[in-house]
Structure formats: C-alpha cells, structure tokens
C-alpha cells in the first residue's frame, strides 16, 4: 500500500509560437526546465497528418495507424523533456497549447533506468488540462481533495470500509442509431455494478434518455459523484456550441419549467432543444441534440468524475483564445472535477475493457484517477490490446488527477 501524500507530481506545459514549439518541465522537486521541441513549420504538417489519421474511422477500426505509431516511436519523443527519463513522476499534468491540444502525448514511447520502451501513459498517470486556470478550478472543486491525503492509502488491497468514499453514480445512455444498443446498455450496467446498486441514482432503462430527464436528474439532490454518459456525440464543425449528444426525444412532449422573476412571479419556460437534429443522422428513434450550449446555460454539476463514453467526445477544434472545443471540456466548464473521454472514435470493445480496469482500480484499489488510468492502460497494453495504441490509448483524463 502506498500513500497519496508520497506521490511525485510534475507538470509539462507546451507553448507554440510562429517559429518554434517549446516545452516547460516542472519536476517533482519544483525545479523548472525549458526545452525546445522543434520548428513549427516542420511539426505542423506532421501534427496535421496525425490528426487526419486519428479522425479516420477506417484507420482506427482496422488498426492501420502508421502515423500514430511513428509519432509514438519516433518524432513524438521531442515533446518529452530529457529529464523525464531519469526522474519519472507518478503523476504528470500536461497543459497543451494551440496545435498540441489533442495530441496523444501519453502514447509516446520512452524508457527509464528500470524499464525500456513503454508508452508514457503506462509509466505515469497522466491528466490533460487545457489551461492552468481550468486545472486550478478543477482542483478546487474536487470533493476527493477533502479527504486526508496523509491517511489515504491506495494499492492492491481494498480500502477499509470507514475510509472508502461513498460515491453515488448516475449512469445511462442510449444508442439512437441502434447498431450497438445492447453494448451501450451492458456498459452502463457495468459502470453501476462497480459502485453497488444501492448507490445508483439514475440507471439506464429507468427513463427515456432525453434532454429533460438527464437535466432533471442532474438537478436532484444529492448530486451524483460520478456521472457516466454513453451516447453518440455529434460534432457541428461550423458552430461548436451546437455540437452535442444524440438523445431520445421526450415522449411526453415539451416540458415547461417555471423560472422565478422579480416580485414573486414566475415565467413558464418551454424547454425546447436549441437546434434541430442533423438531417444526415438516420436514427431508429425520434432524436434531439443535447447541445453543449444547452449544457452551459441550463446544467450545473458537482461531479467528482464524468465518464463520457461516446464518439470522439474528447476531440474538438481549437477556438479563439486557445479554447479547445470538445464535449469533455464543456463538462469541465459546468462543474466536473475530472472527465474521462475518448480522444478519437473508440472501438466499443476497447471502451468496455478500459472502463472495467479503470473503475476496478479507482473503486477497489482506491487509486487516484490518474493512477487508475495508468493501471488500465498497463493492463490493456499487456493484454489483448497489445500493439494496438489506437485502442489502449484511446481514453484520456482531463482536469484534476486526484
């Protein structure tokens, strides 16, 4: 058993300028070191080609990912500071910038004096934070930080019942396309099982999975500590805030909610979706889009962890002000302490295997989330997903690592 307070924490920040990319490494001791990554004009086309490959469903599903493998084994190593190999931390907080957002740094292969040639994510627990300020906000709101870190042991043994955190879970989802319906249901059930049925606040199958029911569940008290959302994501390339989750349309019609006004009066607010469903989607049910704009204006959460198990939920364009626009980022903005989400279109088998290992480490071994992620990646990269970085490296953690 190890103590949380003994963990070695470090940070890696990137800065992109017109001429070159640079990094700043903050060692566990607090010492800082700047290093040059490379010329922007050389790296930009490579990053662009890598992004294209990771956005190609055929490349991911067939495992034909030569650019990802080249990045991991070759040119990606320039993104890591030389000191990392000799001073490998337990937890690494990565703060990307501009074109480095969404780069799978955790898949870069590296060595330490003890082990040779492993993906970074197998050696250290990694979390991504799109900015320093967002990282600090997620740390401040994380209920896990209320625990006594000097008494928090993690490892192979289960935590003592009086020390184990009592977490409630809200898990649900819907496959509006219908091809993976049973897999969605099974994965949601698997998540709730890890926490014990009595702590399940909202399980799949209880209600239609619609905008209204999800928002109503989020408003309930006590709020869930863990929120698992399994739904297809839709990315609107022209207007990010109209991107969102594909959910069922409410069978009861449009819901009205009273909004308190000045003088004790109320206004009945008709809870309409903010956009029409995309015409390209041929769903088996009546659908609506639960947009990121709607999440931002009409939902607040206080979850310790949000698990987004949908298509490319962690991927998005970088907007003005270096704001990465992804569904995962939206959940961090509305109150989550940490979010796990796939960085590209994930194979369902990989998501389920990852979910099992991650939740086992987090709930049964009481590991911090970043170390549970490292545990899951270790297990997957040594097991049936060996030699498939597009599968064992698809899930990433954002926000607080604890």
């Amino acid at each position: 058993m190890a103590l949380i307070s003994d963990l070695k924490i470090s940070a890696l920040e990137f800065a992109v300028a017109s001429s070159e990319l640079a990094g700043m490494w903050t060692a566990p001791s607090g010492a800082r070191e700047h290093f040059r990554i490379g010329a922007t004009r050389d790296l930009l086309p490579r990053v662009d080609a890598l992004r294209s490959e990771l956005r190609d469903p055929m490349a991911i599903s067939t495992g034909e990912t030569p650019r990802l493998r080249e990045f991991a084994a070759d040119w990606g190593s320039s993104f890591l500071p030389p000191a990392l190999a000799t001073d490998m931390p337990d937890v690494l907080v990565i703060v990307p910038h501009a074109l480095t957002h969404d780069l799978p740094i955790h898949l870069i292969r590296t060595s330490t004096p003890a082990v040779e040639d492993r993906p970074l994510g197998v050696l250290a627990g990694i979390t991504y934070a799109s900015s320093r300020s967002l990282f600090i906000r997620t740390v401040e709101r994380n209920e896990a930080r209320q625990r006594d870190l000097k008494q928090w042991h993690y490892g192979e043994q289960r935590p003592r019942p009086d020390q184990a955190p009592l977490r409630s879970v809200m898990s649900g989802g819907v496959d509006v396309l219908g091809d993976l319906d049973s897999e969605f249901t099974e994965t949601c059930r698997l998540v709730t099982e890890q926490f014990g049925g009595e702590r399940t606040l909202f399980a799949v199958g209880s209600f239609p999975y619609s905008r209204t029911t999800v928002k109503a569940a989020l408003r309930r008290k006590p709020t869930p500590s863990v929120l698992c959302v399994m739904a297809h994501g839709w990315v609107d390339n022209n207007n990010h805030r109209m991107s969102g989750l594909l959910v069922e349309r409410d069978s009861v019609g449009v819901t009205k909610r009273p909004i308190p006004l000045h003088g004790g009066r109320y206004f009945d607010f008709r809870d309409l979706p903010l956009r029409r469903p995309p015409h390209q989607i041929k769903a088996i049910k009546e659908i609506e889009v639960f947009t990121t704009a709607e999440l931002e204006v009409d939902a607040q959460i206080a979850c310790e962890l949000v698990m987004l198990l949908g298509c490319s939920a962690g991927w998005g364009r970088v907007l003005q002000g270096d704001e990465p626009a992804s569904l995962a980022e939206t959940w961090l903005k509305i109150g989550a302490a940490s979010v796990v989400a796939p960085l590209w279109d994930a194979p369902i088998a990989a998501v389920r295997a990852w979910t099992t290992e991650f939740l086992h480490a987090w709930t049964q071994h009481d590991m911090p989330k970043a170390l549970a992620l490292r545990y899951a990646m270790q297990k997957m990269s040594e097991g049936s997903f060996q030699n498939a970085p597009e599968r064992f490296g698809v899930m990433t953690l954002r926000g607080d690592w604890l």
Partner: protein
Amino acid sequence: MSEAGKSANDKKLDWSKLNELSDQQLAALVESAIFVLKQSDAPGAPSPTEMPAGPMTKALEQLLRERGADTSAAGRVVKHRELARPVAVALLSAIATEPALAQEVERVWRERGGLLVVGTGVILASALLFLVLKLKKVKAGSVVVVFDKLSTGALGSVFKFLS
C-alpha cells in the same frame, strides 16, 4: 432495423440482401470496400474519397473512355445522389462474386461496426466505382484477385441503372 444489418458486430453479412441495409450501414460497407481496394492502389495515389466532384467526374470519364463506355455516365453517378444506392449495391454485388475479396471487405466492415462513430450516411458510390474501374489486380489477404473481369461485370450492372 433491417435483418441484414442487425448487430453489425456479430452477424454475418448477407450479400444477397444488400438492398435491406440502411443508408448508414451501406455507407459503412462502401467505405470498407474502398478501404480494402485502396490497399492495392499505387502508394501516394490521390484518395477518391477526398476528390471534389469536378476532378472525380473527369477521372471517371477517362476510365470509362478507356473501356469504350458511355462517358456521360460519370457525371450522373457523381452528381445524382439518388443513384448512389443502386450503383453501390451493383458494385458490391460484383465484389461479392469474389469470395476472398468479399470476406476481406466483410471483415473490415465488421470491425468498423464496433466503432463508436456517427457516420454521415453518405454512400460514396462514385469513389468505389473509380477504384473498381482503375485497379487491375486487388490483394485480398493472401489472395490476388484479377480485377479486370470483375470490373467489366460491375460496369455492366452499373450501366443497367444508367441507360
């Protein structure tokens, strides 16, 4: 959902019931066929899935001319969306006559079926036609399929819709 495409992950694809597939499923099958055929294309050759309509029409006209076929069909296949589905089914049915190739396409389609992805449902029939006409030989696993005869047959079935 149609029986032919039910549980794409675990059910065998019935090549004789391609018409029963939804647009999304057929689009995924066409993408899978394109992926397999592209492996036999020259390295660095432009991807037909990324070709704009104009260059694609010209490229198809050239390939049809080489075979002495009516070149006006190229423009119709590229521009008329309602033709995408029957043309794709005709091409895939021709591919199904080569068991090794069909097996490889089905394997790729099944793997793609397990992906958490929302397809656009756009059936890339003209891109598939381009590759079918262009390639002389196609490697399917360890088997090399001589594609000339197959593509002549495919062309015949496509022209049934266009004439």
